[in-house]
């Protein structure tokens, strides 16, 4: 017996207004709708603007991140990321102005000012980011003015992040708020000169499970130094040196293309997109970075590294591919950058990707995604549990990659799962990460537990 979808009879699983957000490759001629706000009542997997800003800025390790609002917003994002730090652990603390009813009625500015004085006197941070939340936007607290005053009072950067959740149901808007805050932070004071170097900045890299350190090790080996990552394992002082780089490499494009463009405009730093997820992507990215420097020694060392690493990991991955060939995979992640990388990696493992979706993908990114997929694959923007459930079952998926909320649903349906979210603890980047990823896919897809689970739901 096939295990049924739990959708009530007569229901397609899709709300009719969501039709244009779902396409089947090869069948649909129309373009996917992906710029719409989340539909009310659709149980979207998306978060909010504040969440977007918080995840981008949070890995700045020595800054204080102060959430101006009632308690919920801070408590849900406390230590939310798997970003590692080589030094300060300040970023893992969660500060909130904890607005109460009287603050909402009379305005929260005095409390914000008092909280700023308190945390700055207690911790002497190099900078404070102040995030605005829904209520703060609603009651019209002038956080820009409060931050400016505090900045003058204490002589440090106190930077407002305009991230009121209701501005949009799309994290991308929050990425922009974070990006603007970063640009404010790194812009040199009048008269200050940041000297140009041969180092590069690594944008859209959050050091999940130490990924930044791994890539930095590769770059160092071939003779290139990393100036600062945005924002994995970064410090305020290091970020302020960002204008001195000769190149920006951009990994998570959703969060950082705007920053890269502005760094190019303001400081003349060119950028290139890179991707360190998967062995081929890693090799390709290293080659392109080396080519940018144009130094024969760097290019030679890059080839040595690539050859050595590929020789080391190829047989291991081939072992996993044997077990995984023919398995059917689904991907539902935050951004298209990650989806594209995952499609390639899954295919490299001999798997067929039959469902792909994102929370924040853009039109041209969806075109790239569709181009990578075979005919008949479902592509969905801003999915919800009902749709995910339906597609996982309809498409007979064996393993899914996604975040925490998708994980428990997949397990309930007897389907393997790989975490590719912002709180994961495993390093999935670079050559070593490619092995870890293959192992992650293997241990869940081929786990003996599914045998018993499938028997108990009457499936195969």
């Amino acid at each position, binding site marked *: 017996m096939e295990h049924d979808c739990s959708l009530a009879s007569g229901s397609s699983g899709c709300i009719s207004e969501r039709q244009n957000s779902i396409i089947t490759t090869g069948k649909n001629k129309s373009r996917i709708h992906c710029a719409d706000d989340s539909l*009310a009542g659709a149980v979207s997997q998306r978060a909010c603007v504040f969440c977007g800003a918080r995840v981008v800025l949070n890995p700045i390790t020595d800054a204080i991140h102060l959430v101006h*609002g009632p308690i919920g917003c801070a408590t849900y994002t406390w230590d939310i990321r798997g970003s590692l730090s080589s030094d300060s652990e300040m970023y893992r*603390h969660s500060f909130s102005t904890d607005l109460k009813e009287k603050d909402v009625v009379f305005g929260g500015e005095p409390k914000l000012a008092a909280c700023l004085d308190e945390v700055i006197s207690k911790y002497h941070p190099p900078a404070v980011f102040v995030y605005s939340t829904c209520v703060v936007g609603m009651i019209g607290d002038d956080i820009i003015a409060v931050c400016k005053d505090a900045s003058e009072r204490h002589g440090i950067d106190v930077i407002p992040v305009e991230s009121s959740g*209701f501005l949009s149901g799309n994290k991308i808007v929050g990425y922009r708020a974070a990006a603007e805050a970063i640009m404010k932070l790194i812009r040199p004071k009048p008269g200050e000169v940041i000297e140009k170097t041969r180092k590069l900045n690594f944008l859209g890299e959050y050091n999940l499970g130490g990924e930044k350190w791994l890539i930095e090790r590769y770059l160092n080996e071939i003779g290139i130094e990393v100036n600062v990552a945005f924002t994995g394992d970064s410090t305020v002082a290091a970020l302020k040196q960002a204008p001195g780089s000769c190149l920006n490499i951009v990994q998570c494009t959703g969060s950082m293309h705007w920053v890269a463009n502005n760094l190019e405009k303001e400081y003349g730093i060119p950028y290139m997109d890179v991707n360190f997820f998967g062995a081929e992507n890693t090799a390709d990215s290293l080659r392109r970075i080396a080519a940018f420097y144009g130094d024969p020694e760097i290019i030679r060392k890059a080839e040595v590294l690539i050859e050595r690493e590929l020789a080391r990991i190829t047989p291991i991955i081939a072992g996993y591919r044997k077990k995984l060939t023919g398995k059917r995979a689904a991907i539902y992640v935050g951004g298209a950058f990650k989806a594209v990388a995952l499609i390639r990696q899954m295919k490299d493992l001999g798997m067929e990707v039959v469902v792909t979706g994102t929370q924040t993908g853009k039109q041209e990114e969806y075109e790239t995604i569709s181009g990578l997929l075979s005919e008949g694959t479902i592509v969905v923007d801003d999915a919800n549990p009902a749709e995910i459930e339906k597609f996982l079952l309809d498409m007979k998926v064996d393993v899914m990659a996604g975040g925490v909320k998708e994980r428990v649903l997949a397990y309930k349906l007897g389907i393997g799962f790989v975490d590719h979210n912002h709180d994961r603890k495993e390093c999935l980047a670079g050559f070593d990460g490619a092995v870890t990823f293959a192992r992650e896919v293997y241990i869940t897809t081929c786990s003996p537990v599914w045998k018993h689970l499938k028997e108990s739901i009457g499936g195969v």
Partner: protein
Amino acid sequence: MANHTAINTLRVKEVNENQCHMCMPLGGVIAFKGIEGAMVLVHGSQGCSTYMRLANVEHFHEPVDVASSSLNEKQTILGGEKNLNKALDNVLRVYQPTMLGILTTCLAETMGEDMDRMIKSYMQSHPSIGVDIIPVATPSYGGTHSEGFWATTRAVIAHYAKPCESHNRINVIVPNISPADIREIKRILGFFGMEYTLIPDISMTLDRPYGGRYQKIPTGGTSPADISRMPGAPVTIQFGKTCPDALSPGLFLEQQFGVRLVNLPLPIGVDNVDQFVAALSSISGQPVPEQLTLERGWLLDGMADAHKYNAEGRPVIYGEPEMVYALTGICIENGAEPVVIASGSPHSKLKDLVGPMISDLAEQPVLIEEADFASIEHAAVSAGATIGVGHTGGKFLTERHGIPVTRIGYPIHDRIGGQRIFSAGYAGTLAFLDRFTNTLLEKKYSSYREKKKEEMFNHIRG
């Protein structure tokens, strides 16, 4: 009466650093998920519902679908009714619930949304939907998730309860405890052969056994038909000593319908379980069954085995008020005298309740209401705490100060099995006690050879 001025309380500062509580609608989500056929809709911006889903998914390891009216900038100006109506259409269609709980967020409350009017108008234009819609005001700035839980439970009862004929089915109202503990409370109720209505019952909805077809709204939960008959019950047992009167579901039933309220502490710890068992024995007229006597005996035996190890513990206890109150009792019973007692809730009756329990202790613990972990951590380190008792929030006690934490309560995000943490009844108390004692022993044995050498041998040599 205890001299409360002797309690060393710590004043909370302006900023909240590392939260010890979550927001009000989150508690509402959990309570609604304990009602049969229920789905939840959060009226506010998209992020709130996603965060609350995440917080629950990571604790219960179950899908916890929560819809949102996804308010955007436009609606904050024009009002959210259109979005709410759209959300109702969609969620009712896809989930087909028999009951829909609507929780407001701080955004909706600040906008001044008139929920009652909007829902009435929706119901009027959809006369045949056959769904009960229950709104609860839960602004994040109005309280913690504990208050949200009580307020929602009270609102559900107030919605369904109507005058009815007297019957023998007792009411049992539980706070936010694990599905495993609810199952244990039901097992104990079963020993006395009593019929009961337990609310809210997440024991099946948020801890699903595997097997059969996946259900969007899992079977289980308290049935509205049973809730409607709660006013005819002979008595309400409520585990809600710390519940504020204004939010107390049991008090509501007593004041509105004259149902006698027996307000008990959570049945964790010998004294507390004894109170529960005695109440059941008295209500049912049945003697205490042999099985429970045996379990009580095993617990006492275990306490004797563990008491000397426990006496070395200097616990810092934190979390939701009801849990903290019970845990303070069990620690004191076992000779592990608490050095810090803290709750994020500003509204609980914790201070008054704990006062008499701690007045005889050699050393007065620090008591913190409206606590954050910066203040808990500071107090714990100053007092030389050696063990934490509470939820995941205390992880920095371990990371930064080497103080291990026995995990209990909500939320548990950094360990598996939050839904299965078993601590109620005599059997659960013993299970908790073993976890607590073993945490102390693990810490002791991992370092005592080194420590003794450092303390004693190196002095001879040096």
